């Protein structure tokens, strides 16, 4: 395994609230959302709802799902799939939990879904429309 494919330590499990999430900033691309459910399982998805780009890290976590804070789509934490009848999928990331420490893969953080953006709002949106 080359150095670029290594698992890197992100935080400890205790840094993520139970039934909550933290955001992981990347050099490029949107944040990765790290979720923790009531069973202390940890999941990692791109922090972006497939519907209208809402930050999933800000949603309400229940079971193995999160409700997007913008329009309440329900996204599966395991696979990033929207619950039926909604359709869409957000990219997921490999995550490892070992001795209470949370790890993500360096190569995925560096390269996965770095092209996806948040929707624009405010004056920035107006300028983009011109």
């Amino acid at each position, binding site marked *: 395994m080359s150095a670029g494919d290594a698992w890197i330590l992100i935080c400890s499990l205790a840094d993520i609230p139970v039934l909550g999430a933290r955001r992981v*900033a990347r050099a490029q691309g949107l944040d990765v959302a790290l979720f923790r459910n*009531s069973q202390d399982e940890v999941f990692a998805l791109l922090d972006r709802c497939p519907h209208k780009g809402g*930050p999933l890290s800000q949603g309400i976590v*229940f079971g193995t799902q999160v409700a997007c804070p913008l*329009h*309440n789509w329900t996204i599966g934490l395991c696979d990033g799939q929207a619950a039926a009848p909604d359709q869409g999928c957000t990219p997921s990331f490999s995550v490892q939990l070992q001795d209470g420490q949370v790890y993500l893969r*360096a190569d995925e953080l560096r390269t996965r879904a770095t092209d996806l953006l948040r929707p624009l*709002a*405010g004056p920035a949106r107006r300028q983009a429309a011109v």
Partner: protein
Amino acid sequence: MEMKLPPMRKHKLVMVGNGMAGVRTLEELLKIAPDLYDITVFGAEPHPNYNRILLSPVLAGEQTLDEIVLNPISWYEENGITLHAGKTVTEVNRSQRVVRAVDAQGQVVEATYDRLLLCTGSKPFILPIPGKDLPGVMAYRDIADTEAMIDAATRYRHAVVIGGGLLGLEAANGLMRRGMKVTVVHVMPSLMERQLDPVAADLLRQSLEARGLHFLLGAHTQELLGTEADGQARRVRAVRFKDGSEVAADLVVMAVGIRPNTELAQRMNLHLDKGIVVTDTMQTVTDARVYSVGECASHRGIAYGLVAPLFEQAKVAANHLALHGIGRYQGSLTSTKLKVTGIDLFSAGNFMGGEGTEEIVMSDPFGGVYKKLVIQNDKLVGACLYGDTVDGSWYFKLLRDGRSIASIRDRLMFGESNIGDVGHEGHNKAASMPDEAEVCGCNGVKKGAICKAIKDKGLFTLEEVRKHTKASASCGSCTGLVEQILMFTAGGDYSATPKTKALCGCTEHGHQAVREAIRSVLPDGSKLLTIGAVYRHLGWKTPNGCATCRPAVNYYLISTWPKEAQDDPQSRFVNERSHANIQKDGSYSVIPRMWGGETTADELRRIADAVDKYKIPTVKVTGGQRIDLLGVKKEDLSAVWKDIGMPSGHAYAKALRTVKTCVGSEWCRMGTQDSTQMGKDLERAMWRMYAPHKVKFAVSGCPRNCAEAGIKDVGIIGVESGWEMYIAGNGGIKTEVAQFLTKLQTPEQVLEYTGAFCELYRQEGWYLERTVHFVARVGLDYVKKRLLQDEAGRKALWEQLQFALDGEPDPWFEPQKAQVDTRQFQALGSGQGVFA
């Protein structure tokens, strides 16, 4: 290590009858317990489950058979269900638990069961008259009948339909549309006597006659006459009546009613009384392993023939089959709608009226409109509408809710179309909307798309339509329209929202039951103080609820037991966790509190400095007289709060938001009272007050009412002699003028009465129910009783609110005390690029 247990033997569920009620039971069962059973289905018809209600549009040539299939063969395959279509069950051995069926070729199939579901439906009743077995005489019940009628219409001229009820008229209309000359024979003096009063029935007859149908009312059929050849009857040729008269007929359709199909149940020695007698859990009283739903089941002496009740039964049966063991079927109210294109009629409840009832009638026979509402004890108990049925769904809702209509009695007849909903181009009548008209302004859903989804996907409930089309799934203002469309498209059989609506899919309990459970002290003297305890106590189906129930239960806990129940930030919507409003790009808005809408140069300077320092892109004045800073990055939120140094405006919360004021007597030459001071006092007394939904006040200093107090949750209007108090107004989705509550003398009284009203709403309102809906639900009279007639109670409410608010932290100044998890403001690894 995960333990690998040997797979348990699955239970066997056999269903007899492959119709709508049964298959709906399976669908409900698969939703909650997908792996519990091996399922085998026997259906006498050689088809998968189809929408029997829509046979009439098929007969009339408006839809095709393919279009009315609800569950194609692939659905059975995907769900691992063994389907024996075209096989009739002839015998069930209850001691050995074996079902035996034969197909058309006489081939026998057997299946054993642990649980048996009997959904044998009903059979048409055939008049026991000479000639009933002649070729050309038939009933109208299934696909085969429909096909036979369509075929007959291509070859014969004269049809007689015996029976002037719902089914008979739909059959007659269909045959006429296919070119036959149709006579409807009815033994009663008026049509559809079980659904319509005589006036409406007469209007219906006239309208159908104008379309070309012939009627013989009060006619007793004596026998059916046939053509003869070689001494053998070849085909029916005429109907003869008791008075000796005859009508030519090449086709006779008997639609004189249905009888529960209980032949098999009888052979099984199950107790029968107008059907297979079942308990509230849909189990037969004879054998608890045997369930029955649908038209064959007799519940509390009633066998229902409409879809809505059957679906309610299906839900209960599925719940018990899934071993959840909660939920009881307690009977249904039904409504009727004729599926004849162009004829609008609707009836529900006790539409005939009678002793102890009052009637409101509107009759315009030349315009073809007739409406009758039957009222008993201030409640709507029946409705019969002809010609204009757009308000049918609304009346039906009033009827089922059993809510007092005393306060809306004068407007009742004019329907819900008087309401001021916005977002759908002012349309209030779904039937008259063109397909391309937008119904749901939030999600951009057009009428045509909703109709198509209802037909294609076989949707029956508002919830299903919301899920599949998103119509009325956001702000909900078009709910009434969507219900109308559902009713028009699916017919009167649409499933109206059940009376007690479950809070969400995680529970069977409604809001009221959950509130009451939280309020009642347990036998051992303890209280339910955490969400987990509530879920365990009420048997929640999910371990930690969902995004709908958790915020509701969290609110119920902290509002019922202030200072005792612990707030759970992870069960709050993001805005109440971040204490700011999330925007479409994931940034936030910050609205500081400005008491009564007043500010100072100092505050404005600090705001301006923060805007520069944090590069806040938009500054806007809100409708509630506050300043909104839009586009604040989440990581800047706490710094912005600190720099501004103003209290939280709670513009993000289900809480007291703003108190809007006019200038008042301090400056205004018209002012009679110091409305600004009153507004500031109200805001200081009640800020940080969480509630079922957002709460807005306004105070005006004179009746010119510049603060627009008439559309606020509490509106106070100063007059020369004191203050007028209005409650439950709303300026949003549903513009609703606030209702006068009382006249008050002093500012202290204004505080006390306003506080008491808010506390009543906090304690008894349902989560996400605005004051307008709360007061509509409990009635203005009830609010008056609690606030005006019970002085001690009012003072107690006001004290309870003050107790709850005492020492409550401002989340912007005291984040720790307010349990704000400040970790949320920082991304992990932000700035350092360590995860690059």
